[in-house]
C-alpha cells in the first residue's frame, strides 16, 4: 500500500489500462503535451506516444462524438473533459449517441467509452466553472455514472470503468485531486461499478454522501461521536446504477437519514435516494429524510458567498442533530 493523491491514483489507473489494452486511447484538451490541465495525464504522452494520447482542439461536441464513433468501430476511448462544465457542449453525443446506441441498434453497437474529468465546485471560478451536474447524466438509461471520493476508489473504479463495455461518466472532484489515501499496489486491483462502500460504521444516523461530501461527512461523524451520536457514512460511489440495497440496509438499522451533496437540491440525486428510501423503508424511518445540498443559486465568485453555497461540516452536523431530534 502506498499513500498517494487522487490525482496520482487516476494517473496510475490510466497508465495501467493504456499498457494493458492497445484499444484504449486517451483524448482531450491539453491531455498530452501540456500533461493535463490538472496533471492527471502527466507523463502519459511520453510513455505511450501521440497515437494513444491525443491533444484535441477546443471542440467538445466534436471529440466526444468522435470517441463514440471510434467505440462503434471497436476502440475503447477515454475522453477527458477539461472540466465537466464543458461536457455540456457535448451532451448531444453523450446522451443521444452514446447512451442510446445499444438500444436503438437492437443490441448491435455497445459503446465502451469513458468520459472523465473534474466536476463539482472548484475554487472561486464563479458560475460557469463550478457546478455539479451528475443528476443530468444519471437521469439517462444506458449510461453509468461514477463519483469516487478516495484515491483507492478513484483508481479501482477508473480501471473498472475503462474495462466496462458501456459508456461511463467518471466525475472527479476538482477540489479533491490533492487528497491523499492508501492505494493497493496490485496492478489488477479494481473496484466493481455499482457497489456502495460503507466508509464508517455507526448505529444512530445514516449519512449518504458522495464525492466532495464524503470527507465532510466523515469529519461530521467524528464530531458527532463526541456528542454521543454514532453515524454510518455510506458512499454509493456509483450513482447509476445506484446500490440502493446497501443504503436501505443501513436505514433499517439506524432509522434516520441525512443525504449530503454539493449539487442543487431540485431533481438531484439526493431527491432520488430520498424517494427510494420512502418507497422501500418508510416504516423504518423515525424522522423525515433530511438533505444537505448546495445552495439553489448559480455559484458566486466572492469567497464568503461561495462558502455559503457549498455544504460544510457544520451543516451536516446540524442536519444529523435535527433528524436525531437533539436540538
Amino acid at each position, binding site marked *: 500500500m502506498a499513500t498517494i493523491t487522487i490525482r496520482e491514483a487516476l494517473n496510475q489507473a490510466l497508465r495501467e489500462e493504456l499498457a494493458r489494452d492497445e484499444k484504449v*486511447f486517451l483524448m482531450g484538451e491539453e491531455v498530452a503535451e501540456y500533461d493535463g490541465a490538472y496533471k492527471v495525464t502527466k507523463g502519459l504522452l511520453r510513455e505511450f506516444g*501521440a*497515437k494513444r494520447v*491525443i*491533444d*484535441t*482542439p477546443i*471542440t467538445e*461536441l*466534436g*471529440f*466526444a*462524438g*468522435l*470517441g*463514440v*464513433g*471510434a*467505440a*462503434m*468501430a*471497436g*476502440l475503447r476511448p477515454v475522453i477527458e473533459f477539461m472540466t465537466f462544465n464543458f461536457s455540456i457542449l457535448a451532451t*448531444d*453525443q453523450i446522451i*443521444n*449517441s452514446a447512451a442510446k*446506441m*445499444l*438500444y*436503438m*441498434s*437492437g*443490441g*448491435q*453497437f*455497445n459503446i*465502451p467509452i469513458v468520459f472523465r474529468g473534474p466536476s463539482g465546485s472548484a475554487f472561486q471560478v464563479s458560475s460557469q466553472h463550478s457546478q455539479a451536474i451528475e443528476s443530468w447524466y444519471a437521469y439517462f*438509461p*444506458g449510461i*453509468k455514472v461514477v463519483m469516487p471520493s478516495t484515491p483507492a476508489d478513484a483508481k479501482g473504479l477508473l480501471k473498472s470503468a475503462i474495462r*466496462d*463495455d*458501456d459508456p461511463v461518466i467518471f466525475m472527479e472532484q476538482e477540489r479533491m485531486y490533492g487528497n491523499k489515501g492508501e492505494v493497493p499496489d496490485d496492478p489488477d486491483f479494481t473496484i*466493481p*461499478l*455499482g*457497489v456502495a462502500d460503507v466508509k464508517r460504521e455507526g448505529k444512530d444516523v445514516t449519512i449518504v454522501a458522495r464525492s466532495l461530501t464524503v470527507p465532510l461527512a466523515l469529519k461530521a461523524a467524528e464530531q458527532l461521536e463526541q456528542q454521543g451520536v454514532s453515524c454510518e457514512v455510506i458512499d454509493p460511489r*456509483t450513482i447509476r*446504477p445506484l*446500490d*440502493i*440495497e*446497501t443504503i436501505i440496509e443501513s436505514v433499517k438499522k439506524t432509522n434516520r437519514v441525512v443525504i449530503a451533496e454539493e449539487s442543487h437540491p431540485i431533481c438531484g440525486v439526493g431527491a432520488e435516494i430520498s424517494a427510494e428510501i420512502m418507497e422501500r423503508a418508510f416504516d423504518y424511518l423515525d424522522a423525515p429524510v433530511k438533505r444537505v445540498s448546495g445552495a439553489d443559486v448559480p455559484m458566486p465568485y466572492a469567497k464568503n458567498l461561495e462558502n455559503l453555497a457549498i455544504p460544510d461540516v457544520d451543516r451536516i452536523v446540524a442536519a444529523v442533530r435535527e433528524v436525531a431530534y437533539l436540538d
Partner: protein
Amino acid sequence: MSKQTAEPPSAANAEEQQSSTGAGVMDAPPDVDPQLLKKERDQAKARQKDRFSGLDNDQLIELYRQMLLIRRFEEKSAEAYVAGKIGGFCHLYIGQEAVGVGAISAIRQDDYVLASYREHGLALAKGMSARSVMAELFGKATGCSKGKGGSMHMFDKSVGFLGGHAIVGGQIPLATGTAFATKYQGTDQVTLCFFGEAAVNQGAFHESLNMAQLWKLPCIYICENNQYGMGTSLARAMSLRDIAQKACAYEMASEFVDGMDVLAVREATLRAVERARKDYLPTLLEIRTYRFMGHSMSDPGNYRTRAEIEKYQERDPLKLFSASLLEEKVLDQKALDELDRRAHEEVDDSIRFGDESPLPDPEELYTDIYANPIEPGRK
C-alpha cells in the same frame, strides 16, 4: 497522432474544383420553356453516357437495379405509412436514389456508412435486405434493430451500416470517429458519412471537418443537398450556399456533383475513396439532388410549388439512367420491365415478411440497455 497541416488537396484539379455552375453539376432547372428543359436533359444524358466506359453491362444494370429497388421500396413504405403499418416519422429517399447507390457502389463491404434519418435507401444500397428494413419500419422483432429503432435508426453491423441517426448532424462526429478508428487500427477502410445540407449549419459539421483534415482521417463527407431543410429553403438558411466551398475553410478537398447522375456520383466518390485509402485524406462532396416527396410523410409541402417539383422530376435519376441504358443498348425495354417486376416482387415480399413477423416480446423493453448490466446489490 501528428498534427501536420494537410497538404493542399492532392487532386485539386480543375475537374474537382468546378464552380457550382460548371458542367456536370445540377443547378436549379431554369424556369423556362420545355424546349430548354429538354436540352438540359439531353446534355445530362450525354454526360452520363460518357461515364459508361470502365463499367461492364452487369455493373451498370446492378446500379439501376438498386436504384429501382429503393424507389419501389419507398413507394410501398409510403403506402404502408398511410395504411398505419408504419408509425412515427418516415423520411423517404425518392428522388435521391442516385446519390446513395452511386456513392456506396464506390466502396467495399467492410467500409462503413453512417447516415441521417433519411436512410432506408442507403441501408438497402449497403446490402441490408428489404425484409429487415421493412420489418424494422413495421416495428417487428425481425427488423434490423429488433423493432427498437424504427425508420430513423436502421443498423446492421454485418454489412457495416452504422445507423440511422436522428439529431441533425449527429452522425458527422460519429463517422469522423469510425474513420479515426480504422486509421488507428491500421486498416485501409474508409467511412462514408451522409447528411443533408441543413446539417451543414450545425457545429458538429464544422468541428468534424476540422478534426478530419487536421488528423488526416479517411472520412468522405457526403452532403446530399436536396435544397430544403424540412420546409426551409437553402436560400433562407445559409449565407454561403455553395457548400463544397466550405471545405476550403479546412483545406479539405471537395467537389460539386450532379446527384441525379448515378455515374457522376460514383466517379466523384471513387476519387475521394482513393484519396482516403492511400493518404488518409478526407473529402467533402456536395451532391446536388432533390427529394420528390415531402420532408417526411406528415409534410404538407406547401413551401414549394408543384411546378418546381415537376421540373426536377424531368431529371429523375431513374429516368435519366434508364434512357441512357436503353440508348447505349445495355438492355432493352423488356429487360427494364423485368427488372421492375423483380423490384416489385422483392418489396412485396418484404411487406409480407413484415406483416407476418411477430411484435417484439414485451421482455425486450428491458434488454439492450447495457452490455454489462449491473444487478442491484451485486457485491
